[in-house]
C-alpha cells in the first residue's frame, strides 16, 4: 500500500512566495515561445511600484496557421457556410489555454486532408445554392465558357481569400483550371475548382506577413497595408478582413493611429468582434468546453457569457465588475442548482445573490468552478494552482520528482476530513513552500463543488464540515469566490495579468523579455481608461508597433 510518506516533498522549486507587485524588470527574458510552459513567473506592467519605462518594440512573430475556429469563421464569412463543418471535421487545437499558439501548430496529413474535405464540400454547397452563389460569384456567366466572368470571379473572390489583390499572372494560372473542369463539368464546376484551389493556398491557410525592411532596425519589417488589415481582423474578429477593411487599407485609411482606431472600433462592434472577445474569455477562464452534462453545460456557458457581454461589451464598465458583480444570469434550473430562488417562469433572468451568499462575480459561476478539479471532486491544490496561473499569471513549478500528484492525500492515523488530509502540505516545511501558495486558495472555494453547487459538509463524510475560509498569501483572507474576486481586483497583479493574457491571445505565444515595453503600454492604457477592457485592444492595435513585425531569428 501507498503510504503517506509519498506525499512528503523534499524540495519545491519556483514557488516565490507572496503575490506582490514585482519590479517590471522581472519579466522573464526566458519566458519562452508558446508551448514552452515557462512563461514569466511574475506580474509586470501597470504595477503600483515605480517601473522603469521601456520603449515598446515590434513583437517577434512567425507564420501563423489559421486555428480551427479562425478557419471556420473565415469559411463562413467567404462562402456563407452555416454548417460549421470545419469544427466537426478538423482536429481541435489543443488549448494552452488559447487555441492559437503558433509554436504548437505542427504540419499534419490529418489536418490537411480534413481541410481539403471541408473546402471541397463548403464550396460545392455554396455554388450549388443560388442565394449563396452570389456571395462568391459577382457575375452571371453568359455561357459555360465565359472566361470574362471567371476572371472577374478570380479577382474578387481571390482578393478576399488571399487578402490582397490577385496578380494578372495568378489570374491566368487559375484560369488554366477551366479546361480541366470543363472536360466533365460546367462553368460552376470551373468556379468551384478555382475556389478550392484558392482556399487551399498557403496564403489562405497561413497568415503570411512580409512587409518591407525598416531601415536601421535589423529584423524589423513594416507591414503592407493589406497585411495590417489582415492582422487587425484576425486579432479583433478571429477571421479574415472583410472587403471594406481591405478597401480602407488600399485607400491608405490605416496609415494613421486614428484610422486604425476607427476601423478597430467598427470591427469590435460587429458580431464577429463581440464573439472574439467572448472567445478570449472562454479560453482564458477555461469554460469553452465544460465537463458537465449538456443542459448544465449550456446553462453555465450562457450565464458566464452574459456577464462578459454585460460588463465588457454592453455596459463598458470597470472590468473589476466581472469579478465582483452582485447579480448573475440564470434560469430556474441553474438557480436551483446554485440554491438560489426560482421564479417559476421559463428563460434566463438577472438575479441577485443576496447578503447571505459568498458568491459574487464570475468566479462564482459553475463554468469557472469546473476548473482545477479532478473527475470526482474538487482539488484545493489544483484550484489554487489554476487561480495563480490564470488570474495572477504566476507559474507554479511541477511537484518534485518524489511526489505522486495523481492521488489525493490519503491521510494518516484515521484522519478523514479533507482539510485535515491536506494539512500535511502545510505542516511539512518542504511541501509548504509551494502548497501554501495553492491550497489555501482552493480551500476558500471548497464550499462549491466541481459543478458550482453549494455544500456545507463533505458528501461522503457528513461529519466533516466545510468552512470555505481561504487565503491569498501575502494579500489577505477570504471566504468564497466573491471574497477571492474582491481580493483579486485590489491586487496589483490584476491589471498586468489581464493585459498579459490579452497579449498572449493576440500574439499566439507567451511574452518574451523584449515585449516588456508593449506590456507596460497596454497596462497603462487599461488602468488609465478606468479599466475598460476594449481599451487594451485599442491600445495594442493603434500602437505603431502593431504595423510592424520582428522576424523570428
Amino acid at each position, binding site marked *: 500500500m501507498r503510504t503517506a510518506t509519498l506525499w512528503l516533498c523534499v524540495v519545491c522549486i519556483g514557488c516565490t512566495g507572496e503575490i506582490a507587485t514585482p519590479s517590471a524588470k522581472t519579466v522573464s527574458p526566458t519566458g519562452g515561445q508558446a508551448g514552452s510552459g515557462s512563461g514569466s513567473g511574475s506580474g509586470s506592467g501597470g504595477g503600483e511600484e515605480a517601473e522603469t519605462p521601456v520603449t515598446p518594440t515590434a513583437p517577434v512573430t512567425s*507564420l501563423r496557421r489559421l486555428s480551427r475556429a479562425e478557419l471556420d469563421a473565415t469559411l463562413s464569412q467567404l462562402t456563407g457556410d452555416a454548417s460549421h463543418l470545419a469544427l466537426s471535421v478538423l482536429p481541435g487545437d489543443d488549448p494552452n489555454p488559447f487555441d492559437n499558439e503558433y509554436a504548437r501548430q505542427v*504540419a499534419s496529413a490529418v489536418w490537411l486532408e480534413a481541410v481539403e474535405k471541408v473546402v471541397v464540400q463548403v464550396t460545392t454547397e455554396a455554388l450549388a445554392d443560388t442565394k449563396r452563389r452570389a456571395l462568391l460569384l459577382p457575375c452571371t456567366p453568359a455561357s459555360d465558357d465565359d472566361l470574362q466572368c471567371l476572371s472577374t470571379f478570380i479577382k474578387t473572390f481571390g482578393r478576399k481569400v488571399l487578402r490582397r489583390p490577385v496578380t494578372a499572372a495568378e489570374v491566368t494560372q487559375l484560369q488554366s*483550371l477551366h479546361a480541366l473542369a470543363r472536360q466533365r463539368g460546367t462553368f460552376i464546376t470551373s468556379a468551384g475548382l478555382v475556389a478550392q484551389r484558392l482556399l487551399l493556398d498557403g496564403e489562405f491557410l*497561413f497568415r503570411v506577413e512580409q512587409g518591407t525592411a525598416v531601415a536601421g532596425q535589423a529584423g524589423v519589417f513594416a507591414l503592407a497595408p493589406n497585411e495590417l488589415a489582415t492582422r487587425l481582423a484576425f486579432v479583433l474578429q478571429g477571421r479574415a478582413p472583410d472587403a471594406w477593411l481591405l478597401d480602407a487599407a488600399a485607400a491608405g485609411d490605416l496609415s494613421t493611429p486614428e484610422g486604425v482606431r476607427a476601423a478597430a472600433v467598427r470591427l469590435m462592434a460587429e458580431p464577429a468582434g463581440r464573439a472574439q472577445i467572448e472567445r478570449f474569455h472562454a479560453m482564458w477562464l477555461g469554460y469553452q468546453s465544460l465537463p458537465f452534462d449538456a443542459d448544465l453545460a449550456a446553462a453555465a456557458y450562457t450565464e458566464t457569457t452574459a456577464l462578459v457581454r454585460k460588463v465588457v461589451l454592453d455596459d463598458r464598465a470597470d472590468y473589476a465588475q466581472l469579478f465582483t458583480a452582485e447579480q448573475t444570469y440564470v434560469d430556474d434550473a441553474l438557480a436551483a442548482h446554485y440554491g438560489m430562488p426560482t421564479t417559476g417562469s421559463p428563460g434566463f433572468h438577472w438575479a441577485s445573490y443576496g447578503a447571505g451568499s459568498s458568491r459574487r462575480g464570475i468566479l462564482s459561476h459553475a463554468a469557472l468552478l469546473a476548473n482545477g478539479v479532478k473527475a470526482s471532486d474538487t482539488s484545493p491544490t489544483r484550484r489554487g494552482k489554476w487561480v495563480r496561473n490564470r488570474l495572477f499569471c504566476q507559474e507554479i513549478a511541477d511537484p518534485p520528482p518524489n511526489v505522486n500528484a*495523481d492521488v489525493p492525500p490519503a491521510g494518516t492515523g484515521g484522519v478523514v476530513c479533507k482539510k485535515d488530509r491536506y494539512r500535511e502540505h502545510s505542516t511539512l516545511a518542504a511541501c509548504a513552500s509551494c502548497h501554501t501558495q495553492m491550497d489555501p486558495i482552493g480551500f476558500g472555494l471548497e464550499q462549491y463543488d466541481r459543478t458550482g453547487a453549494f455544500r456545507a459538509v463533505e458528501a461522503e463524510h457528513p461529519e466533516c464540515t466545510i468552512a470555505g475560509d481561504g487565503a491569498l498569501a501575502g494579500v489577505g483572507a477570504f471566504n468564497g469566490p466573491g471574497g477571492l474576486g474582491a481580493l483579486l481586483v485590489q491586487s496589483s497583479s490584476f491589471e498586468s495579468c489581464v493585459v498579459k493574457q490579452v497579449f498572449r491571445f493576440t500574439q499566439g505565444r507567451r511574452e518574451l523579455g523584449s515585449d516588456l515595453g508593449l506590456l507596460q503600454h497596454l497596462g497603462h492604457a487599461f488602468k488609465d481608461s478606468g479599466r475598460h477592457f476594449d481599451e487594451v485592444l485599442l491600445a495594442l492595435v493603434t500602437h505603431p508597433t502593431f504595423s510592424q513585425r520582428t522576424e*523570428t531569428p
Partner: protein
Amino acid sequence: MKRTPLTRRTLLRGLGQVAIALPWLEAMSHSAWAAPVIPKRYLLGFGGCSLGGYSGTIADTFVPSIVGAGYDLKLALANLAPIKDQVTVVTGLRLPSAADNGGVVPPGGRPLHFHEKQVAPLLTGIKTTDGTFNGPTTEHIAGDFLGAGTLFPALVTRVQVAEYLTGAVAGSGYRLSYRSSGGALQQVAPRYSPHDLFVSLFANLQSGGVTADQVAEQKWRTETRRSVLDSVVTRGSALSSKLGRADRAKLDDHLQQVRELELRVAAIPPPVAGACRKPTDPGADPAIGSGGSLDTYSQNLGYSGEDQRAEVICDLIHMALACDLTRSVLFQMTVSHCWMNMYQITGQLSDLHEISHGGEGRLTEDTCVSLARGINWHMKHWASLLTKLQQTPEGNGTLLDSVGSVFTFEGGQGFDPESGAERDAHSTENMAMIVAGAGLKKGIHLPAQGKHPTSVLLTVLRAIGYTSNTLGEVSGEIPGLRA
C-alpha cells in the same frame, strides 16, 4: 533538406500511365499488386496504461503462471483466447530510469517521473530527460525499409479520440509517433476518425461493376484534385523562397504534406483481387464526448464510442494490409496517461488512469483486477485484428505469417523511483508485450527478466528484415523470441 522520397518528375512519369492498372512509380515496382513476392509488414499496438498497481499483483491478473507452451490466460489477457496459439507473451521487461544510474538518465532510459516520460525511450530505444522524443519511432523505421513505395509508408492510427482531461478536443493528447525527415524529427498526428481513415485509404478503390463512364469520371476527379494540389505546392514553394528562415521551414513542412497527399491521390489504387476488397463505408463516426449524468460519476463524459471506433479501425487496418496500401501500422488504442472513461466499456465508474490508482475509492476490488478489465478490452480488439489477419489466406499461408506484430503497454508494475513505492503503476518494471506473426515463436509465455522492452520491438523488426542489431541505444534481441 526536406524529405522528398518521390520527386515531382517521377510523379509525372507515373501519371502517363494513369489508366493502366499498374503501379505508377518505378519505386513501387516491388509492390504486391504487381509482384508475386509477399512483402513483410509491421504492426505495433499501444495501450496507454500500466499492467497493475496500488493493490494486488499482476502475477494474479496478467502474468501467466505457466512458462513456455500451453500457458494460462489470466483476466487481463482472457480475450486473447481465440488466437492464443499464435500469440507469445513476453514478460518481466524493465525500462531503466535515472534511479539506476546515480540520478542520470541511462541509455534507453527515463527520468524519475513516469507519465509521458517513459514512452519515448520505450518506442525509440533512446533516452529522454523530459519526455521529448529523440529519434524516430519503429512504425516509421519499419515503413522506411518495408514500405517506401506504398501509399502509406507508415499508417498512424488512434482509437481514443481525445485526451479527455479537459473536455474533448479531437486529436488532443500526448503524441508518440515521430518520423525522421531529412535529418529532422517530425511529429506525426494520428488518424483518429474511422470514417476519414476509410476515405483516405479506400476512396479510390473500384468496388467492381463500374461502367466506362464511371471510370472516366473517377479519373477526371482524381486529375482535378491532383492538379489543384500540385498548383498549391508550386506556388507555395515560390512564396516560401521569399520568407525568413523560420517561416520558410514551417511552410515547407506544410507543403511536404501537400505533396505527399498529391502523390497518394494520383496513385493507381490496388486491384480488388485476392484478399483485397473495398470495405463497407463505416458511415459517420460515433459522436465525440456526449453528455453525462451529474448524479453519479458522469457515465458518458470522456468517451466517444471508442469500442465501436476500434472495431472499424481494425477492419480498415486489416484491409489496408491485405491490399498492400501500407506495410507498417501503428494501432494506438488509448492515449498515454489514459483518461478515457471506462464506464461504457467495462461498467467501471472511472477512467482508466484513475482505475490504475484505485479509482479514487469508487472501486472495491484490487486495483490490479480493475485495471485488468481495461487491459482485456485492449486485447479484445487486438485479438480481433490478429484473427482477421490469420484468417486471410496469402500465398501458401496467411496474412499474419508476413506481419511482425507487437502490442505494448506504457508501464508495468513494480518499483516507482518517483515515490519509492513497491508494486506501483508508475513503474517500468515487469512490463510485458504481446507478440505474434512473421518469424516469431508462437503460443508461448517467454519471461525475459530485466530485458529492455525496446529489445522486443527490435526482435520483431529483425524478424521482418531490419538488419541492425541496435534500436536507438538498445542492442540485442530477446533470446528465444525468434522462431
